[in-house]
């Protein structure tokens, strides 16, 4: 033991740290500036958030340079106390970088979406952006964490500010109800997850993913405890991913929360849970894949089926998106169900397809939510029929939503969505053919409700007339970013998928 504290590689914790510092800056700026006197001033917190995201992205790019040289870079390592290689709390590899990119994109778009509420004035912007950055810090940290303690704490950092964000709009009954439900389901899931962590710790003697793996490879004598513990640990993460049966909070919370928060939950929060799953299952317990892979496979099948079947019923746009995000989570989990007994290299390859799916999903789903935010400014009730004629009245938003829906459904113009589906499908075809069949059926069911919404968009509106949509600049930018990204990636899918698949899967 050399120093009082551990050695620290600042570059690696730079990206999350930048977000945390920006959070404090936003808070202080807001406190000193007082209540905003103009609409422009009310946009300052969002601008600061975007700046922070930019700084974080630059630092992440620098960290990526380091990654190129060394493969994986670690810091906060425990030295001296143990024999063998020192376990580390933080490591940055390609998986981490991919998730950092997803989180940063999500945070930027969500911050832009929130500007739609500025005019309404019921949400305190400074605090809202502070909370957004705080939870993003957690999401960034979780992708780099390599021990269960950091993972758990980071997961809580993702959750707690999100509870507040859901209920922050003043005097909104539905928002406060959504907040309570989200909170309760979350803390109970966390408690179950903690019980699981304690059992994993008891079975393997460590909380470091690397050492857990080593202990199980060496033949820990309490395998069954480790498996039970691992699956209980997964509960808290599946709650975030919105996998059945831990999904029931999703529609209620998405509908009650402001749309920007729903977008956040459906992309960034989901990504956090997802990366946690990869860490716990693939990094710590690859030896036990024969035990967890079939279980997660069944969960994937249930998740997509329940999500799709219930989405069929919806007349409410955001609730439909909520169920669709449940269904999409099911597709994302498919590769997990297809790695039973796979070697580590194969497992990395297969799971990288999940990551690829998540990246695609993030881009197009954010686009859908962005357009929903626009329509929400005119039709707060968000019925599907309110979208009638959108393509004619507001072509950018209309076509962006059409593209997003087409990509979510996996139809050809949205090639990127199609490729993502192909990726996960082909990972299951063979090792878990039954899962591939279930997925094929579900994709077919999914077409129905996406197509129904699409028809509404293309249909002429009941009352023709000039545009009365109030598209705030920020939301317009969000739509532009996601739409452009979706189209570009559809023409050049390699741009998005190559780094994910080749990098993570090596």
């Amino acid at each position, binding site marked *: 033991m050399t120093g009082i504290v551990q050695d620290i590689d600042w570059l690696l914790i730079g990206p999350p740290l930048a977000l945390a510092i920006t959070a404090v800056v936003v808070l202080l700026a807001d406190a000193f500036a007082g209540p905003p006197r103009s609409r422009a001033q009310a946009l300052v917190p969002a601008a600061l958030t975007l700046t922070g995201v930019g700084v974080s992205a630059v630092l992440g790019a620098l960290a990526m340079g380091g990654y190129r040289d060394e493969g994986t870079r670690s810091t906060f390592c425990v030295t001296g106390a143990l024999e063998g290689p020192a376990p580390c709390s933080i490591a940055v590899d390609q998986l981490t970088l991919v998730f950092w990119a997803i989180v940063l994109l999500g945070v930027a778009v969500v911050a832009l979406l929130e500007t739609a509420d500025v005019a309404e004035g019921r949400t305190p912007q400074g605090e809202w952006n502070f909370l957004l950055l705080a939870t993003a810090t957690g999401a960034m940290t979780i992708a780099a964490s390599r021990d269960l303690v950091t993972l758990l704490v980071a997961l809580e950092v993702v959750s707690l500010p999100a509870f507040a964000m859901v209920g922050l709009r003043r005097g909104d009954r539905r928002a406060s109800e959504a907040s*309570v*439900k989200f909170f*309760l*389901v979350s803390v*109970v*899931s966390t408690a*179950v997850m903690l019980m*699981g962590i304690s059992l994993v710790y008891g079975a393997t003697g460590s909380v470091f993913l690397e050492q857990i793996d080593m202990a199980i490879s060496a033949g820990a004598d309490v*395998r*069954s405890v*480790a*498996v*039970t513990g*691992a*699956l*209980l640990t*997964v*509960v808290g993460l599946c*709650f975030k991913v919105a996998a*059945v*049966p*831990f999904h*029931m*909070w999703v*529609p*209620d919370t998405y509908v009650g929360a402001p749309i920007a928060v729903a977008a956040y939950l459906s992309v960034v929060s989901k990504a956090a849970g997802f990366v946690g799953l990869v860490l716990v299952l693939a990094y710590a317990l690859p030896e036990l894949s*024969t*035990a*967890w892979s*079939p*279980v997660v496979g*069944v*969960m994937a099948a249930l998740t997509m089926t*329940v999500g799709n*079947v*219930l989405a*069929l*019923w919806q007349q409410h746009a955001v609730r439909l998106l909520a169920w669709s995000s449940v269904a999409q989570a099911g597709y994302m989990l498919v590769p997990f169900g297809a790695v039973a007994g796979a070697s580590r290299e194969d497992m990395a390859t297969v799971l990288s397809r999940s990551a690829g799916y998540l990246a695609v999903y993030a881009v197009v789903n954010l686009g859908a939510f962005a357009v929903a935010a626009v329509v929400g400014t005119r039709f707060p009730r968000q019925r599907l029929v309110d979208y009638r004629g959108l393509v004619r009245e507001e072509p950018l938003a209309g076509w962006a939503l059409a593209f997003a829906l087409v990509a979510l459904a996996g*139809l*050809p*113009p949205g090639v990127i969505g*199609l490729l993502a589906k*192909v*990726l996960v499908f*082909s990972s299951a*075809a*063979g090792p878990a053919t039954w899962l*591939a069949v279930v997925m*094929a059926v579900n994709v*077919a*069911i999914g*077409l*129905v409700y996406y*197509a129904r919404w699409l*028809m509404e968009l293309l249909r002429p509106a009941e009352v023709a007339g000039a545009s009365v949509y109030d598209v705030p600049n920020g939301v317009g930018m969000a739509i532009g970013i996601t739409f452009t990204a979706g189209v570009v990636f559809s023409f050049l*899918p*390699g741009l998005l*998928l*190559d780094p994910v*698949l080749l990098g993570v899967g090596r």
Partner: protein
Amino acid sequence: MSWVVLLLVVLPFVSAVLSLWVGHRGEVAERGIAVGAAALGFVLAVAVALPHLGDAEPLSHVFAATSAVGPPIELAFHVDQLSALMLLLAHTVAFLVQVYSLGYMAGDPRYPSYAALVSVFTGSMTLVVTADDLWALLIGWELMGACSYFLISHHWELPEARAGAVKAFLMTRTADLGLLFAIIVLGVRFDSYRISTIMGEIATGGFGRDDLWLPALLLTAAVVGKSAQFPLHTWLPDAMPGPTPISALIHAATMVAAGVFLVARAYPLFLSAPVALTTLALVAAVTMFIAAVSALFTGDLKRVLAWSTVSQLAYMFGALAVGAYEAGVLHLLAHGAFKALLFLAAGSVVHAVGTTSMSAMGGLRGKLPDTFITMTIGFGALAGVVPLVGFFTKDAVIGAVWEAAHEGHLVWPWVAWLLLVSAVVTAVLTVAYSLRAWLMVFFTPPVVEPVETPAATPERADLHESPLSMKVPLYLLTIPTVLGGLLVAYPGVAFAEVEHTLVHPTTAVLMTLLVAATAAVVYLLWRRHGGRDPWHPFVLPHPAVDRVYDVGVVRPVRLLARAVRAGDRDVIDGYADGAGATTRGLGWLLRRAQNGNVQAYLMVVVVGACAIAVAAGVAA
């Protein structure tokens, strides 16, 4: 030469963009673009196709390739005899349709988008038939689906046009998943997406019966949807609200023909997977019969033709399923010719009368002489009258099925026998519905329906023959309809090697007798009912002699017709209406659980956690 193929694919898309762009500026310019591009496409197609007929070597060329993940995805073309024939068919029909539309769509404000979509349709079909890469094929395949959606909903003010379009979209899209997943499976299996490579490997490599059933079945699902076969057959008749020239294009040369083409293209794959062939044979046997019965009891001229397409496509699949490759492809070509003729002629009738209801037509022989002559030839070919093309190709199909039933080895004998019976019965029914439609359109005095449309008023003084631009395509199409039989007699012109003759004297004579007998019966029935709908006894009071006939024939037939229709309406439409009944029930149940009570959610969470923990503990 390979650049000509690329040009042939790109040209229609360019013309589509141009006609949209020039759009409403000048009528002459936009029409010139549409027809000129179609004409150029026709010339190019002939130039590409003719050198590759007969014994010629296929043309293969790769323009570009990507290598992102997995096997490379290429822009590659492969033109062999099959592609050449399909190119000729598609571009001939497309050119004639564009010419025809000059008259048919005159004054339609949406002509630019219409012409553009017809062009895109043609380009997509060209891509499908020439592509050597499965993904390129998929793109063309899907573009056709999208185009058909827009063309069917051309008159989107009409609710049935919208409903038909949505239905077509959903049904074909669902089936298209089969193609998508088949591509994935093939790509994984062969590490390539080149069709010629994959088919070459299958043809030479020793694959067992159990190796390739999955991709073959997936492809079967895809073509069943695309070519409107049972149980996904209902979208095609419901697609009839679209403009009539579109129906000609869809039914004769592009959309539904693509399904048959795909089977022919992937023929080595199907030959190595007997289960897929058997499925195909069963589907064909059921479809041809059901569709013919439906055609028999339809009062709408276009729906009669639509059902007949479904039924004739089933003939092609039946031929392919028993190994008669040439017979299937030739019937596809023949059907393309006479069905385009029939639809364009029907369009001419509709143009004159203003409705598609057959009861409002009748007595048109003198008023529309050119339409009468051409449509008579078309119906004759459909019914299989000597010496029109339909007679020869249908005979080739039935002869092949006959042989398969006796000594075939590809499908189970009982399936072949079922197919044979179904084919013969369907041939009889085809004669019946063709003759009925012909008589009702051109001879029966019209039933007065004053409210239907102004054009159908009893005096019908304003009835007139169609303009020249519509008549010329009709007469041009009679040429292949009359002379096409020569190709059956001398298949060496088109195909590389044909081992056996395609003319079967025995079946030909038997079928001719059967056709004549059926025609006589229908004609007598028609005369007996005073020159009205021959099925009129269904509603007329009848003397005691007819009682036996009524109980023995009419009622069972009526029941059958009702059952067929019920199958369409209640069971199969369930999917298109939103979701199947089972998902509805499941959804209702799950939705009850989503009752808003957070403690109920928590209970599910806790029980779920216990369940997965126990499951994994047991698995460990």
